[in-house]
């Protein structure tokens, strides 16, 4: 999808990096402008508790000390961007006084564990199934995998999560369907705590992974079917290579290129993709933080999350572009 043909001038590392920086800058500018649209004067909001006794002069002084009397563009924008660059994302409304950066860093490991595991599982199963289905096009396994992947691809992962909770948690009672650990489970031994955490991971990881598997199968299969019809495959066959040799030496490597790009791109979306699933399982990561921020209209936190999502996506895109340039000599 992205990457690929770039038009005249070719594929320069500098150009790719420049684009990424511009996109990131646009994320920052959007973040700034968007949250200035909300009605209400920030200074008035800050002094809302002491409304009766606040004089116009005090308000004026407050506005001055926060730099709110300066024009929106460029003064306020520049100071917003520069403080953001220094890692200062402001303070949360809901969690009074807490820094947004701290909140996000606290929650991030939970999301990374969930989404990372799901990615690994999806990559292994998705690529294997997709390559196999594309190699044996029209076979039983192909039809079965393709149908299932399409259905999984169209299924919202959080709904899958709800179904899994009904089935495996409520009805069968096999696995926990809520939270990331049971209180007190880790008191006995380290092992008991670890097993408890893993049991809590299974259903949410499965919900995220199944949707991703569908995606990987679709792309890997398409890439493989493209490769199978190439001239060099006919040549390889004419040279008397066996099926296994053809698959290993020629088909697999070439089919992997789009898949690697997709994997790299997906790494940028791991956090975004887990948001809704976390909401189902009350998983204490970025997703639940997003829901809390949405419900409490905690805009600084929402701003910080948007910045995190934007930055990770832009970064993953940058890596994907660079990898594509490395792997495909035609792009160089």
């Amino acid at each position, binding site marked *: 999808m*992205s990457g690929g043909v770039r038009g005249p001038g070719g594929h320069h590392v500098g150009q790719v990096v420049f*684009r990424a920086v*511009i*996109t990131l800058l*646009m*994320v920052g500018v959007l*973040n700034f402008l*968007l*949250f200035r*649209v*909300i*009605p209400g004067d920030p200074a008035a909001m800050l002094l809302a508790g002491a409304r009766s006794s606040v004089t116009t002069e005090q308000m004026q002084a407050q506005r001055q000390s926060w730099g709110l009397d300066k024009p929106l563009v460029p003064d306020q924008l520049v100071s917003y961007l520069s403080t953001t660059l220094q890692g200062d994302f402001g303070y949360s409304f809901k969690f009074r006084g807490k820094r947004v950066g701290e909140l996000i860093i606290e929650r991030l490991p939970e999301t990374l564990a969930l989404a990372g595991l799901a990615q690994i599982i999806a990559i292994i199963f998705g690529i294997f199934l997709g390559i196999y289905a594309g190699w044996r096009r029209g076979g039983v396994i192909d039809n079965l995998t*393709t149908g299932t*992947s*399409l*259905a999984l*691809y*169209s*299924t*919202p992962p*959080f*709904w899958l999560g*709800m*179904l899994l*909770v*009904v089935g495996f*948690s*409520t*009805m069968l009672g096999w696995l926990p*369907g*809520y939270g990331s650990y049971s209180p007190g489970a880790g008191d006995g031994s380290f092992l008991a705590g670890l097993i408890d955490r893993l049991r809590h991971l299974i259903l949410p990881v499965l919900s995220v992974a199944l949707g991703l598997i569908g995606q990987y*199968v*679709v792309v890997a*299969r*398409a890439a493989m*079917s493209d490769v199978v019809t190439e001239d060099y495959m006919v040549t390889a066959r004419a040279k008397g290579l066996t099926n296994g040799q053809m698959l290993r030496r020629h088909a697999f490597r070439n089919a992997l290129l789009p898949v690697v790009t997709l994997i790299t791109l997906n790494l940028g*979306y791991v956090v*975004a993709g887990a*948001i*809704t699933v976390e*909401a*189902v399982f009350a998983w204490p990561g970025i997703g639940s933080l*997003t*829901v809390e921020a*949405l*419900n409490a*209209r905690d*805009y600084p936190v*929402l*701003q910080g*999350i*948007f910045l995190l*999502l*934007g930055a990770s*996506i*832009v970064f993953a*895109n940058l890596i994907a572009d660079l990898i594509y340039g490395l792997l495909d000599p035609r792009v160089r």
Partner: protein
Amino acid sequence: MTETLPATDNRRRIRVRAIKSFLSQFLGHGGARLGVFALILFMAMAAMPNLLVGPLQTAMNATGDFLVSPSQVNLLGTDEAGRDVLNLIVHGARTSLVIALVSTLISLVVGTAVGMAAGYYGRWVDSWLMRMTDFFFVIPSFVLALVITPVVLETIGRSGNILGFRPSLFVIILVIGLTSWAFVARIVRSQTLTLRERQFVERARVLGTSNLKVMLRHLLPNLVPQIAANGALVVANAIYTETALSFLGLGDPLQPSWGTLLALAQRAGAASSGAWWYLGAPGLCVVIVSLSFVLIGNALDDTFNPRRRAIP
């Protein structure tokens, strides 16, 4: 007059033949038949919900017991307020489909305009428009909508009524439509680049046809197949985005879409109390509709472009 008659007659015959062969090829795909059938069913639901299941039930006029499993009275059971789930999902079809289709329309119009202008004018127009497109292409619609929707909702407020729909629906429609066009713009641009060099476009320009007319009369008709095939995928994506946003609480509980129903089910603890019918029905609707659009999109892609196989 008499001389032109056979010509137009012939042209009409060619057109009819083309449409017939298109339909037979398109409907030759099992997936396309399935998708069209399912969509007609859901469109009928969306067109006349009151006729099928009566007016939308609310907590005030609900008749059933709380969280009853499917029975003869409530074919799909009831929710935590005693409302009939079948009633809710039929009314939800209207909300979900209106959001998905109108936002797709916006996205197709914006994407086509941007892509066509970029490809046709080239040079600085192209590079600026494509820079902008890059941004929307990289940042997914869901992520953008996640921060834009609450801000806009807060700014305009949630009360009132426009054309029988709540204003928050328009906000969601606009936000999804205006954030999901980049994919279309890229495809349209690359197609425009090849069309621009074709003789019929050059001839039209030499004859002094205005740029706007060249784009609308000569380029656009040739872009329709590509736009249609990808439009189906845009709808599927719009349904997903809407469902996810509503699930996170950005939907309107007074005019529930399927995603809003899922959010209500989650809040009522439907999953942990085993009320599979409550959360199963709206989710299944989402899957069927979005799968239908994907299947139709693949069949269209295959029909219009026989050299490329259907995506999966």
